[in-house]
């Protein structure tokens, strides 16, 4: 026998279910008057530094149908690559940028829209700069454990090519599933839960 490590086990996940918006974006499902506004709707204000962008995302299931009952949260660095978080050791991030967004999709089109800024670069474990990216967490009915992935930017070819995460993907042809395409100030990012174009998800 040895001493006990006395670790606890993480609380097991359960699906967010079909009514996740009641809890997390109640104003979207017409429950008004409890919260003034849904949390995570506004990431930027007039004073936020950096390049304003719009990110439009969609999620497709294994039959190719767009999902309309999911919820996406995003987390990203500010224009200088700093996070608005007490756990950020490198300095103070832009106080006018939350870095965190939460959205339901449009009920008809399934499009999630985030108004944000393009993030700066965040170092990898060995201090190499990562390409600019946005972290995603996806929950919905039929998803038992929130899905983690990242969105990279299609117009950052050089940074993407040297990114420590993208470049170590064993199946390099899957890399493009993580890259959003730019048109004007809007990036489009389609997420596929299954199939030929299945998005790379992370266990991090």
């Amino acid at each position, binding site marked *: 026998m040895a001493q006990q490590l*006395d*670790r*606890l*086990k*993480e*609380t*097991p*996940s*359960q*699906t*967010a*279910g079909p*009514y996740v918006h*009641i*809890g*997390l974006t*109640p104003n979207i*499902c017409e*429950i008004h008057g*409890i919260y*003034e506004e849904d*949390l995570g709707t506004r990431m930027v204000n007039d004073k936020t530094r950096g390049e304003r962008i719009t990110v439009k995302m969609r999620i497709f*299931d*294994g*039959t190719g149908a767009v*999902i309309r*009952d999911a919820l996406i949260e995003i*987390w990203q660095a500010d224009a200088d690559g700093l*996070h*608005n*978080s*007490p*756990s*950020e*050791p490198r300095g103070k991030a832009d106080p006018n940028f939350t*870095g965190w967004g939460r959205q339901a999709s449009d009920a008809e089109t399934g499009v999630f829209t985030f108004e944000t800024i393009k993030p700066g670069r*965040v*170092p990898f*474990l060995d201090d190499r700069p990562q390409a600019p*990216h946005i*972290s995603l*967490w996806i*929950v*919905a*009915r*039929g*998803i*038992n*454990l*929130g899905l983690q992935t990242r969105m990279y930017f299609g117009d950052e070819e050089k940074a993407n090519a040297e990114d420590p*995460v993208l470049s170590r*993907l064993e199946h390099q042809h899957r890399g493009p599933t993580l890259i959003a395409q730019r048109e004007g100030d809007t990036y489009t990012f389609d997420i596929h*839960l*299954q199939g030929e174009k*299945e998005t*790379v*998800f*992370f*266990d*991090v």
Partner: protein
Amino acid sequence: MRNVKPETGGFFQRVRSWHPPAFAPGYKSTVVRSPQRAPISFGNTLSEITGPVFGREILGPLDNDLTLNYAKPGESAIGPRIIVYGQVLDERARPVPNVLVEFWQANAGGRYRHKKDGYLAPLDPNFGGCGRTITDEDGNYSFLTIQPGAYPWPNGINDWRPAHIHFSIFGHGFVQRLITQMYFEGDPMIWQCPIVRTIPDKRAIETLVAALDMEATVPMDARAYKFDIVLRGRRSTMFENKLEGN
């Protein structure tokens, strides 16, 4: 407020076998929504280690009282009054202070205030179904609500959800993000629920069952259920592998 230096270590690897698998055909919705390829792992960078933190200024005075936060003045939601309380801890058994906990649930008849829920049980005009709070310095949280009802759902022809409350919990790092459901001690419906049964290990399921706590019950007012939540723990920065001059 105690001034504790925030920890910046990476998180312990998630024990995925303790969680339900993505593909769990007893819960039919997972069949076309489960990724089929192995997820990719890499060590936590600051994108994973950091996360949003919310101040108490976002909270309204009734955010942690679902009996009143949607009720007309002088009225309250119908159903057995309960207090749900507990502590948010990490895998190292340390309290997780100042984190946002959100919850949502059906009303006492098992009906959600949602246009896609057409269950026969009526809406309660005084019940919205959501609330939130922030843990204190010792990781404690509590809220007042009514006990939700069980409800049928389209999966098999006769599947029912046990009474449950949905929980969303933030940690201090984005990869601690967790959604789960709390069940009630003694409910025989728990063990036949296809969603509960996506979790492979019975001991894991038992950690989702809140205990009736008569000591914390408020006499002549509300019974109490205790539900502790464990988030992923961080490695101590003492062991981080980035050496000076490296």
